């Protein structure tokens, strides 16, 4: 009897350890709250997609982790609890992740947006400026004043790419369009963002978009003042049932599934994985009622061309604000050049420095 119980116990233990071995534990670290309706929200949607689409994966996450040595402690805590794959999702986590990665060579890291790798650390990101370009087309065909407004946090390459892409998209269908930029000097300052939105509308802008942590503020002001809005990071259409056009949003799920699978079957490579409209890692949200059928057709058509490689967002000629040629006709900016962008294009109103 005793023996029977022992073997029963042993087999149960075995069963537990087998199922534990089959489960891959994946850890996520966010710099802000996962419900910020912006960058972190989008990353967390990727985590939920991963849980839904892979049976053998268990996820856990930490929110509001600052970009300092704290994040190293969080990663080590995750590793001690059995996490094998870590997604440090904020730009400033990169160097900390590299340090922890060196200490734990068996753990895999996938950092969001970085430009460094090590043996067990890769990066992933997506060219969301392609989606901003398409949203610009919708904005250019909707505006009646030919004035668009852009609320921007800081003049870093990622933000400049979005401003320029949005403006170029709009001008590709409506050459009279200008895009006025207001810098708020902060990723999240609701009061300034609302006031910047009011200022742009007072100056005649009738489509607003932006690149700050969350689109909620400017989208709400636009709706209240009866103008249109284009979202960024995440779908904020519920805040503007009347004026919402579309939004450039992230779709990290499929990419994250691919990364986790590569860690399971041993194909993980320390690479810079970049998604785009084709892989759907960056995409347009659903269109709002305010977008005309004509505009939808134009956007859809251009989206197909970009996906099939027949059209490049950063193909020349590209002019700077005073009309000087930056990229000649027939040339196209490389990915590396766009990731270091430091100019505003013709048609953008605002100063860089």
């Amino acid at each position, binding site marked *: 009897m005793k023996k029977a119980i022992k073997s029963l116990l042993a087999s149960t233990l075995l069963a537990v350890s087998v199922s534990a071995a089959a489960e891959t534990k994946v850890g996520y670290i966010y710099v802000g709250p996962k419900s910020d309706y912006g960058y972190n929200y989008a990353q967390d949607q990727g985590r939920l997609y991963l849980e839904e689409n892979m049976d053998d994966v268990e996820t856990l996450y930490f929110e509001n982790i600052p970009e300092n040595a704290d994040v190293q402690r969080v990663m080590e805590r995750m590793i001690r609890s059995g996490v094998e794959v870590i997604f440090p999702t904020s730009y400033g986590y990169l160097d900390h992740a590299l340090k922890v990665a060196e200490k734990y060579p068996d753990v895999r890291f996938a950092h969001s947006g970085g430009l460094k790798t090590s043996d067990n650390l890769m990066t992933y990101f997506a060219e969301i400026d392609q989606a901003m370009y398409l949203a610009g087309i919708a904005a250019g065909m909707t505006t009646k004043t030919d004035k668009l407004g852009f609320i921007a946090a800081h003049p870093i390459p990622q933000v400049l790419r979005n401003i320029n892409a949005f403006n170029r998209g709009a001008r590709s269908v409506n050459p009279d369009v200008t895009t*006025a930029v207001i810098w708020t000097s902060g990723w999240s300052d609701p009061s300034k963002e609302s006031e910047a939105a009011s200022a742009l509308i007072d100056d005649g802008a009738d489509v607003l978009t932006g690149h700050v942590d969350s689109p909620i503020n400017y989208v709400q002001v636009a709706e209240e003042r009866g103008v249109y809005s284009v979202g960024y990071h995440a779908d904020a259409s519920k805040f503007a049932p009347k004026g919402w056009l579309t939004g450039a949003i992230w779709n990290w799920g499929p990419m994250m599934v691919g990364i986790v699978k590569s860690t399971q079957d041993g194909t993980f490579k320390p690479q810079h994985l970049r998604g785009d409209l084709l892989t759907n890692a960056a995409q347009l949200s659903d269109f709002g009622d305010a977008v005309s059928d004509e505009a939808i057709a134009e956007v859809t058509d251009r989206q197909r061309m970009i996906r099939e490689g027949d059209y490049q967002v950063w193909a020349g000629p590209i002019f700077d604000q005073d009309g000087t040629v930056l990229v000649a006709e027939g040339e196209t900016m490389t990915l590396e050049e766009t990731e270091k962008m430091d100019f505003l294009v013709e048609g953008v109103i605002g100063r860089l420095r």
Partner: protein
Amino acid sequence: MELITTEILALLFAALRSATPVLAVVLGEIMTQRSGIINLGVEGQMLVGAMTGFAVTATTGDPWLGVLAACGAGMLLSLVHAALVLGCQANQIASGVAVMILGGGLSAFYGIPYVGEKINSFGSFKGSAVADLPVIGEFLAALTPTILVTLVSIPLISIFLYRTIAGLHWRSVGESAGITRNLGHSPVPYQFAAIVFGGLMSGFAGAALAVDYTSNWVEYMTSGRGLVAVGLVIVARWNPWYALPAALLFGVSESLNLRLQSWCVDISPYLLATLPYLIPLVVLMLSFRGLKAGGGGMPKGLKAVFQGN
């Protein structure tokens, strides 16, 4: 010409909108400092008010309940400052900083479930009966409830402070708690009331920001406006009537920072971003030039806080 008038009017309304939360804090802090107590914790009290106001509005659907709850939350947190300063004789600056950090952390933590929620706020008076009033109707229509409440509180506070016996005691406590004591009054009830009133006003200011102005809650959304308000108390010379121009100074500079950019004025955005701090500083220096040391209306009781005697 008409265009310029519209632009200037738009700028003034923008200034009033962004000045209102700061103005409410300035008024509360003037009352606190008039009793000889300085409270740097207003920043944290504002955040707790903003979070509570937003959460209650999101849950109940009633922005007025949200504003009331925000006032209560600001008062509750200010009790910490009152307990430390009046109960334990703690250093006022240290206690204020503690309250500021506590409020930031508490509001960030308890506010997490409300980030990204949509609330139904007041909206402006456009289209309501108020807008049909003669002469002032058009002006009022551009305002929102918290702006009006804050503006109305200026004369009320001034009347209390300068025209009532309680106000006289309040001011004399701030000038010299010792003399008040010799006259047979305890300064503590006045100082307690002054701290809690500051809590009420900064909680209200938080609601003005989160419930009325932006209809949004984001952690640390005050971005230092509470501390700016403490500085503006000096610009306002501890006088509630001067609180409005002092707060407007900040409001105008902040709106100018954003509007000059959209007017394509050829100044670096980095320099423009310093306007909300540079302009009040310059005005402070100019307006205090030639005043004797300790002038400018500072309650004498505050000297002890700064000079340690």
